[in-house]
């Protein structure tokens, strides 16, 4: 409530019949209603919080979270604080002693291999270094077996590599931008942020490809969907219903079935190629490559997402009375002018809604590119899935996902600035 309600002066706010400020009585009388409304949505709210918001927040947090290093190697992290990789020399004995102590504790708790995998994302080879050292360090006696520097290097020459120490020091803070840098093909080097080696740069390309392909898919959906939506909105009810069923049919068919059908159609020994060869348009030796590339992904996803373009377009076109076109023609406009100057501008909200819907679904699409995309036609989401389920580098997956989310929000914002979001109508 605002300050005005607490101000009971004679020149103050409007008062209700019993002398209480009007705003307060209004709020009181509405409170019950608001509570009831809240109760009604509470089950859904809780469900969404638990199953959607919380997991997403947790995953996004993982993109910067890096407590594993300081938790597993607390003494080493402290000891490394004064060491500088730029000096070009290995850390001194106290650091190795701290490492030995930390590793012993970690081996006992069986957490050293997890740390190894974590650091391996940044510097490959560290995983085996930790696993190998863990076996021996566990048997050392901390009081008598020193000094440890030579003993470590004896186990594995890796401990004599400044790069390994550099990695441990770089990733000792509790939070790190490392995953995000990795997600845009950068890395933290000795001299700060630097580009990755040319053969390791894959994410920027993948992001750009995802963006480009999503735009292409959106454009193809619009080109194919616009006339269909127009027909739907202008045919007689009985014919329109049949057409509507045809549009909705894909919704009732499993996505996997539809994508597999495309595999059958598009592959080199598939239906389309067989037909072309049989007609004689294509030689048997030069069968077209239509799948496991960008063409296949764009084609299959255009098909899958077409209804998401047609339905918003249709619902907007349905509200454009035919009298506008008639009026334009009676005023002397040819069919094309009447369409372009009068009908099209009024269908723009539908185009906006359909395009946003298709584009946002497309940019995060996973199943279809996974099945028909091969290596050239996969999206960033396939890479995210790889990191979540195969490489188990969740931090990187989360960083990629966060970038994707921000990119979509940015595009949404740009759309709002250019076209205006209140120009979007879903019906």
């Amino acid at each position, binding site marked *: 409530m605002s300050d005005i309600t607490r101000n009971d002066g004679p020149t103050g706010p409007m008062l209700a019949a019993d002398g209480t400020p009007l705003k307060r009585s209004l709020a009181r009388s509405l409170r019950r209603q608001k509570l009831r409304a809240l109760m009604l949505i509470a089950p859904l709210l809780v469900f969404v919080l638990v199953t959607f918001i919380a997991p997403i927040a947790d995953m996004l947090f993982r993109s910067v979270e890096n407590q594993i290093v300081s938790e597993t190697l607390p003494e080493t992290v402290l000891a490394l604080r004064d060491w500088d990789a730029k000096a070009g020399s290995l850390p001194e004995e106290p650091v190795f002693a701290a490492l030995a102590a930390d590793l012993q504790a970690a081996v006992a708790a069986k957490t050293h291999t997890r740390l190894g995998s974590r650091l391996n994302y940044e510097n490959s080879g560290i995983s085996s270094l930790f696993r190998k050292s863990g076996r021996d360090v566990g048997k050392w006696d901390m009081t008598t077996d020193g000094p440890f520097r030579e003993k470590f290097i004896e186990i594995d020459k890796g401990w004599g590599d400044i790069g390994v120490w550099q990695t441990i020091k770089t990733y000792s803070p509790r939070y790190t931008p490392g995953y995000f840098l990795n997600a845009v093909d950068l890395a933290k080097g000795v001299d700060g942020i630097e580009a990755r080696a040319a053969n390791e740069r894959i994410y920027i390309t993948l992001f750009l490809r995802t963006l480009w392909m999503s735009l292409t898919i959106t454009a193809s959906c619009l080109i194919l969907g616009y006339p269909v939506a127009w027909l739907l909105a202008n045919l007689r009810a009985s014919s329109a219903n049949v057409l509507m069923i045809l549009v909705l049919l894909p919704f009732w068919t499993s996505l996997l079935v539809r994508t597999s059908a495309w595999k059958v159609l598009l592959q080199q020994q598939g239906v389309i190629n067989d037909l072309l060869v049989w007609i004689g348009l294509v030689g048997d030796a030069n069968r077209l490559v239509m799948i496991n590339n960008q063409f296949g992904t764009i084609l299959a996803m255009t098909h899958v997402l077409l209804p998401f373009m047609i339905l918003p377009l249709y619902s907007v076109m349905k509200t454009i*009375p035919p*009298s*506008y076109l*008639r*009026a*334009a*023609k*009676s*005023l*002397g*406009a*040819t*069919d094309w*002018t*009447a369409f372009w*100057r*009068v009908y099209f*501008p*009024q269908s723009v909200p539908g185009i906006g809604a359909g395009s946003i819907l298709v584009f946002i679904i497309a940019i995060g699409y996973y199943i279809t590119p996974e099945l028909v995309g091969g290596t050239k036609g996969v999206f960033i989401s396939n890479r995210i899935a790889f990191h979540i389920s195969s490489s188990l580098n969740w931090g990187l997956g989360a960083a990629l996902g966060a970038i994707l989310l921000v990119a979509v929000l940015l595009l949404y914002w740009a759309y709002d600035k250019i076209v205006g979001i209140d120009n979007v109508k879903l019906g």
Partner: protein
Amino acid sequence: MTENARTADAAFVEFAHVQKSYDGETLVVKDLNLDIGKGEFLTMLGPSGSGKTTCLMMLAGFETATHGEIRLGGRPINNIPPYKRGIGMVFQNYALFPHMTVAENLAFPLEVRHIGRTEREAKVARALDMVQMGAFGGRRPAQLSGGQQQRVALARALVFEPELVLMDEPLGALDKQLREHMQFEIKRIADNLGITVVYVTHDQTEALTMSDRVAVFDDGRIQQLAPPDVLYEEPENSFVAQFIGENNTLVGVVREINDGVALVELDDGELIDAKPVNVTRPGERTRVSIRPERVEFNKARLQPGAHTLKAEVLEFIYMGDIFRTRLRVAGNDDFIVKTRNAPDQRRMQPGEQIEIGWLPTDCRALDA
């Protein structure tokens, strides 16, 4: 009839044996023949589904005639697309383009005709001034009231100076007062510009106030084509008599026809005099039609020997300018009489028994 008096070459718009069917089974318009003179204000009046809007759409070019020919200025236009016909049109819902301002809406027909910018602006300003909307050029249609939108729609249909303007129930969405005001406004503008107007409505008051001639449509045919006064006072058949204005009907059989007066025996046995309109011989069943304001209580004003009827007053309604009395006459419980609220006028009480009569010329014997 009036249109027979016009010579064929004077007709500006001609419908010649026009038929229209949507489904190939039923005719929506059955053999329409209609000549509209230059500068005439002709109204197509009829209930919904009577074919009047279809006729208008055929003239505008949005529907094609299934049979027959439509001519504009002597030229057949059946195969000319709407945008080449140069006919102005005002739509029922105005059809103002919502994404353009009022001025842009008006400039649209001039732009597609490739008229230069300065001339365009001058014409738009003149058209807006004509409908007193000069100050609203920059507004969007959604920011205007219904009456203002109506004016803009009218200006847009006139701005490219068509000789023929079609109006499809343009006042249907306005409230009563505004509608009456706009009726005069449209009529005034049409007269000033000397344009030909074909106006479609189902509101008979509108048709009577505005038109030079009214074509009453029913069942795909023109039932009567006449100036408003003729239409009201001399309806040619029962449908027109019922549809135009308020009307009392008594059903009976023609007994004799002498010197332009028919003696009709009503179903309850009473005899009345009527003017035979489309009854020709004794024995024919007929509907006798009499306007509520032509019923007479005062015997002194009736012709000597005129037949009178007994009536019982059922209801008396005070309506300010007139009194409306409901009577039971010859078994008809819905016989209405309207009398002027004059100082000497009697106010009848329900239950009162009275006698009523009329001049035989006011009482028309029509088809049953």
